[in-house]
């Protein structure tokens, strides 16, 4: 009797709605409330963080200059085969475009952009624009008049550059950031060796980050282990020595390292006084200085997670291994170390991720040979005002960071990220 009741009639809430539906509704309501609480922050980050980054990403392929200034020319070049000289109509279009651009004062925009791909284009375009409208002699086409003005207008490669920029987006900046260019056959190729720059900058960024991470591990792991084995009262006291620099402004620390490392600084003074060296060592404004300061800044990011992992490992494991006859070193290597790998690797990965985006320390403590990708992003934004290159380098840096961050989240889980 009771069995058939529970089988056939679903349980209902007080108002007769099936309980299952009711619970479902309740759950939906809770989820909706939770989402409403997250919404303000999500919108805020969208506007102050995600949209700006999206702007940066689009800027890396944005190519408005040539299309807007040489509108008719790029249209007329669409059917062009790219091998022989363009038709007279194209020259006519260029003539009209330049005349309009001269009136609107937009010639320099297109000239700057074209000059990036073929040096000399800036002066060519500006010189031509000044002479517009050309007055062809009797029996001369506009094409002849252009070539008479400057023979480069009879050169197919210059026209190829214009044609290549006939679209409002371009892979040019991204390719340049990887030392690639569009070859004569349209396929990407490496630029000549003496013009390569960015691959080595990316390489240097990764290389320096790698060494900073290794040094942080080499100094941080033993210290974290030592702190984890000390009595709590003592380790808390010593932990302050780790946390204090962690909380101190990065600029304060860079300034202090300059004081310590400069040629008449404290470190050199001590070394000279001890008679270890005869002449002051070059410690600041080179790679040594950058390494020292970066390791100093990032060391707590290895020590803190390593310490919290090591604190959670009962010391009895090691004692058991030793009492069972293991050498203390073997016990450490076989029992203790494997338990710390995950936590320590996560810390190291975080240090590496932070390293590849570093800007301040190399900028203040390094020579031009120590500048990493971030520096060139800032350089192209502020100094040469080449936003395309800044955006392209930034996008590649962002890509690298996000790949590593994805790896980090899989390793640690973004939800389990904690501070200190």
């Amino acid at each position, binding site marked *: 009797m009771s069995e058939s009741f529970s089988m056939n009639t679903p349980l209902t809430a007080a108002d007769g709605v099936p309980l299952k539906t009711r619970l479902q509704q309740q759950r939906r309501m809770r989820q909706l409330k939770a989402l409403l609480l997250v919404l303000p922050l999500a919108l805020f*980050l969208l506007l102050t963080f995600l949209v700006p980054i999206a702007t940066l990403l689009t800027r890396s392929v944005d190519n408005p200059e040539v299309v807007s200034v040489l509108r008719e020319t790029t249209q007329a070049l669409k059917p062009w085969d790219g091998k022989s000289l363009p038709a007279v109509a194209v020259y006519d279009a260029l003539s009209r475009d330049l005349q309009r651009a001269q009136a609107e004062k937009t010639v320099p925009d297109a000239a700057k952009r074209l000059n990036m791909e073929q040096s000399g284009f800036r002066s060519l375009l500006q010189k031509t624009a000044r002479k517009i409208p050309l007055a062809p002699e009797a029996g001369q086409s506009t094409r002849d008049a252009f070539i008479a003005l400057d023979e480069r207008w009879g050169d197919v490669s210059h026209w190829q550059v214009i044609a290549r920029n006939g679209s409002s987006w371009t892979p040019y900046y991204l390719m340049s950031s990887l030392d690639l260019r569009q070859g004569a056959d349209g396929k990407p190729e490496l630029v000549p060796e003496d013009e390569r720059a960015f691959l080595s900058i990316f390489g240097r960024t990764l290389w320096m980050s790698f060494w900073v991470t290794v040094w942080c591990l080499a100094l941080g792991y033993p210290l974290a282990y030592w702190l984890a084995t000390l009595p709590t009262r003592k380790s808390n006291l010593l932990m302050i020595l780790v946390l204090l620099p962690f909380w101190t402004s990065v600029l304060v620390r860079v300034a202090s390292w300059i004081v310590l490392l400069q040629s008449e600084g404290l470190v050199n003074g001590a070394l000279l006084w001890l008679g270890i060296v005869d002449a002051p060592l070059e410690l600041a404004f080179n790679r040594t200085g950058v390494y020292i300061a970066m390791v100093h800044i990032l060391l707590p990011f290895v020590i803190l997670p390593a310490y919290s992992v090591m604190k959670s490992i009962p010391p009895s494991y090691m004692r058991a291994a030793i009492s069972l006859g293991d050498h203390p070193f073997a016990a450490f290597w076989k029992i203790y170390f494997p338990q710390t790998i995950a936590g320590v690797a996560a810390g190291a990965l975080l240090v590496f991720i932070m390293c590849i985006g570093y800007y301040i320390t190399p900028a203040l403590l390094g020579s031009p040979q120590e500048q990493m990708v971030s520096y060139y992003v800032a350089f192209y934004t502020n100094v040469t005002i080449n936003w395309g290159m800044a955006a392209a380098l930034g996008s590649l840096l962002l890509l690298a960071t996000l790949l590593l961050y994805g790896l980090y989240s899989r390793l640690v889980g973004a939800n389990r990220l904690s501070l200190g």
Partner: protein
Amino acid sequence: MLPSYASPVERVWFYLFRGFNILVLVFLVSPLLAIIPLSFSADSFLVYPIKELSLRWYEEFFTSGEWTRALMNSFIVAPAATLIATALGTLAAVGLTSSEFPGKSLIMSILISPMVVPVVIVGVGAYLFMAPLGLTNNYFGLILVHAALGVPFVVITVSATLKGFNVNLMKASANLGAGPLTTFRRVVMPLIAPGVISGALFAFATSFDEVVVTLFLAGPEQVTLPRQMFSGIKENISPAIAAAATVLILFSIALLLTLEWLRGRAERIRTLQR
């Protein structure tokens, strides 16, 4: 500790290991200790030995137009950014921990990402986006981006505190007749306050120490303390920087002590609940 039966090799190893770690600790604090005495030097260069003591660099720091304006700007931007980050971050953390919903871990990753994305990218992106809107060279844009950079810290610390939060306390409060707002104010807030405050301190420190975004977004009127130090280090490194550094070190000691005190409080609350 070293047992009395330790072999000579173990003894040597023990002291070597200890020496190494003490050296690493010295490496960590030495820069902070090295710069403080120089701020009291009368010399106009940042070099030892100190020949004559003087407070002239503190006088310069607290009276010159450049430094006082920088100090003032930092105390405008950082509290405002902290306020925004803490309010929005706390709400979001409450939402994120209160219920399971699809895409939660993705949302969490996005909320945390300002901590990981290189600051230069945030700076250039904000500059490219905000310049056409007229948000560069004023406080508003700077405060907004600084707040975005501080958000992850608030979300992380508050979520961590909420994980130890006993939801039954809210039910009990409702059962005793309190409305949702009263419950939040009288029950939830006091319990998660340590987490909220330490998140706010992290957010404050982030903005207070931020220089890269400031380089791109701030005009000459918005130069903050780190920005002023940046140009100071780059152009002429005078002991006024040492004075500024000493003030900042004292400030970070105060932050650290507050945070440790809060941690202790949170610990006590957690043990009380059990």
